[in-house]
């Protein structure tokens, strides 16, 4: 499982995260919501080793991975799927998948390992030899997730999987994440739009200005009006709503 304690980080001198605590348990989906600029992507990138935290601790299954390089974090079993369906555009679908599993060595049979992916996203099998840049945005997101899936991480971090996708493409992608979590993976999803992933989440945390303002089960937060208030910058901390 993933445990984050009192995490502080930023870009250069600009502080973004101000003391984040969270935990993601195997088999559960933790949804992190928050408005634009709340620091959600920074949080995922810091956990995954792309940004060195200024304070705090990141633990993967009890092992301290704070400040470890991203490629080593991935090898330790924590995989980040970056936002904007980033795959390797001038490589084929097959090669993108091969690279996803490459670090696990040669004892894995490619066919076996990608079979579950093709079952959920058959389009990837059909386009196996197409270059990734020729896929649609939704297909690229499927590929990005598939590339992470074949790595069989213990913890999956997923940055705005719905970003830039047509509405119809989002449900199968979320369903895939749900199934994936059910296999015992701890899944952390970041989304900006409140309702996109609320139905598949177990736990929800609302981030704003680099801190977690609200946290609870998905069921609790669904009914909580404060969620929208936080999003719209209205009426928190007893301040007047309007000037």
């Amino acid at each position: 499982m993933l445990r984050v304690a009192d995490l502080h980080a930023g870009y250069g001198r600009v502080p973004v995260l101000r003391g984040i605590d969270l935990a993601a348990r195997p088999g559960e989906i933790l949804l992190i919501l928050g408005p634009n600029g709340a620091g959600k992507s920074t949080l995922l990138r810091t956990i995954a080793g792309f940004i060195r935290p200024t304070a705090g601790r990141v633990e993967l299954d009890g092992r301290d991975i704070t400040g470890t390089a991203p490629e080593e974090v991935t090898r330790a079993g924590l995989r980040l799927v970056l936002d904007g369906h980033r795959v390797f555009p001038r490589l084929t679908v097959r090669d993108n998948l091969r690279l996803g599993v490459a670090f696990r060595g040669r004892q894995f049979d490619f066919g076996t390992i990608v079979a579950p992916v093709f079952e959920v996203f058959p389009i990837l099998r059909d386009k196996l030899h197409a270059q990734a840049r020729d896929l649609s945005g939704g297909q690229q997101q499927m590929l990005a997730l598939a590339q992470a899936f074949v790595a069989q991480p213990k913890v999956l971090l997923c940055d705005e999987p719905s970003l830039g996708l047509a509405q119809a493409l989002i449900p199968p992608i979320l369903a895939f994440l749900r199934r994936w979590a059910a296999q015992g993976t701890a899944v952390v999803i970041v989304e900006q739009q409140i309702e996109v992933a609320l139905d598949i989440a177990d736990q929800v945390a609302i981030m704003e200005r680099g801190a977690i303002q609200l946290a609870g089960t998905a069921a609790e937060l669904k009914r909580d009006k404060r969620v929208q208030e936080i999003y719209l910058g209205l009426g928190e901390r007893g301040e007047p709503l309007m000037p």
Partner: protein
Amino acid sequence: MQDALIVLVHGAGIGAVFALIGMSFNVVFNSSGILNFAQGNMLVLGGLFAFLVLPSSPGIGPWFVFLPASALLMAALLAVQGYLTLLPLRSSVEQHSWLITTLAASVIIGAVLLIFQGTAQQTVRSPFPSFWFLGTRVPAPYALSLLLALVWFGLLRWFHTRALTGLAISAIAQDLDAARAAGIRVHRLQILAFAISGLIVGSAGFVAAPVIAIANDSGVSYVLHGFVAAVIGGLGSDLGALVGGLLVGMISMYAAYTYGGEFQDAVSLALLVAVLMGRPEGLFGRPAARRV
């Protein structure tokens, strides 16, 4: 007509050497955004190796044995250089130290050559006889260089699109963050890219040894021609380096033939400035090149 043919053939031959340097540039540049200023002297070292190991009238057998040896030796040397070059880049915010470290490496190699052989220029004889092509005598090293450039072009293409390691290096060039997120060990592959560039210049220097200047101060000229080739074709594109190299070779050979050898470099410089002012991304280049 005959003159034009000579210019064309010799230009293509020496242009192939420039193309090889250009491709060796690309391997490193694509993986790390670094341009290795020492690449020209590395080529000269490959030539020097040929001079040291081949007898004055070499046989074909030893030549085939020492060709891979030269490539491997230079690969090892480039790996060490790559390690040193990448060292300050890992911790420091200053991301331009490579300008100095690779230039320093170039100076050091030139200096070592000066110490061991003075200002003399070594000559190497090819085991292959020259042959006649369309009524023009073609020295074998020119033809072999061209062949080598085509072979390396093919090998690199295969490596970058088929071999898993090559795919990983391509992935670094295409999206560094996504590559790291996929668990690709970037640093090791960058050093490997340096080593591969060593294989290229090591073999090129050996093959072209009879037609290049093996001297302490000729490396800079080669690195510049290689750079011009790579820029004309578009930095990062091997096809570009191949085409650019041949173009630079022929144009500078034409200049040398018409105006004299001392104008060869000047014409390349003019070519470089013209390309940079007119089309900085080159013939086959993609506009925005990424950095380390």
